């Protein structure tokens, strides 16, 4: 067994840790298992950040390659997935920076806004908002709405609420403090809620016929 991975009690070793150990020893099939397990999630997270499919494809490749090259640095005291997500988030931000011709992009960008810190539109939603729109129209509404959030809010919402990471894992993946994650999550949720109210509030059925404007 490799020496640098600290397994905290042999009974508690996550299966990923064993795969990482094997991959470090040159077992490509073990690494392939890790890729299979997480490529979908890494793709989704990357696309949420870069908002472009071709860039997300590149990020997925670069993130796994970087993970492979850095396997020796994986300490095993966090989940492999959390570690991988951190690499993917950094690769995504680098990709955004390239697209914006070198301008620095960080997950702290535009997070100082006061928008959405208090709900303003308090209209209740239709009891079944999803019945107001067709499947593809709904997907477009959701995409447009989430794309309108600052990247630093968007990524917190995606990791925590969509991908189901814990607050601690989200903080670790993004290099943020737990209070910062909590505060961004609240703002992201409230902003999304507010923006979706426009489409889902009671009495929007007639407008839904006009499609997404």
């Amino acid at each position, binding site marked *: 067994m490799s020496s640098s991975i600290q397994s905290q009690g042999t009974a508690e070793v996550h299966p990923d840790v064993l795969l990482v150990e094997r991959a470090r020893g040159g077992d*490509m099939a073990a690494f392939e298992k890790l890729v299979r397990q997480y490529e979908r999630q890494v793709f989704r997270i990357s696309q949420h950040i870069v908002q472009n499919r071709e860039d997300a494809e590149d990020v997925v490749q670069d993130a796994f*390659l970087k993970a492979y090259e850095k*396997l020796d640095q994986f300490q095993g005291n966090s989940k492999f997935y959390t570690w991988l997500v951190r690499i993917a988030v950094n690769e995504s931000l680098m990709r955004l920076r390239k697209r914006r011709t070198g301008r620095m992009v960080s997950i702290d960008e535009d997070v100082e806004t006061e928008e959405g810190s208090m709900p303003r539109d308090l209209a209740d939603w239709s009891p079944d908002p999803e019945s107001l729109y067709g499947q593809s129209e709904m997907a477009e509404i959701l995409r447009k709405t989430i794309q309108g959030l600052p990247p630093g809010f968007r990524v917190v919402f995606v990791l925590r609420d969509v991908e189901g990471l814990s607050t601690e894992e989200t903080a670790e993946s993004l290099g943020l403090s737990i209070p910062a994650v909590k505060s961004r999550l609240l703002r992201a949720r*409230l902003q999304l809620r507010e923006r979706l109210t426009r489409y889902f509030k009671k009495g929007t059925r007639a407008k839904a016929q006009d499609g997404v404007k």
Partner: protein
Amino acid sequence: MTCTEFLQKLDEMLDPEVAGPLRAELQQHLHCCEHCEITLNTTRKTIEIYRKHELYELPDELRERLHEAILAKCKGCSK
């Protein structure tokens, strides 16, 4: 409890595992504040909807292509 205080604890309210005095206090605020009740319910629905609709699915064909490319690159690199 004010609405601002309630909002600060919204995450706890959305977490079914949070129980005890805090939840009771939050529930008490909800009984007398329709605005916060709407905010809570529509926020919960926002999360549910985003979780349910996979916006960026990875099609099988692309997945295979990416998968092959990743493994080829890793095999070619010196770890």
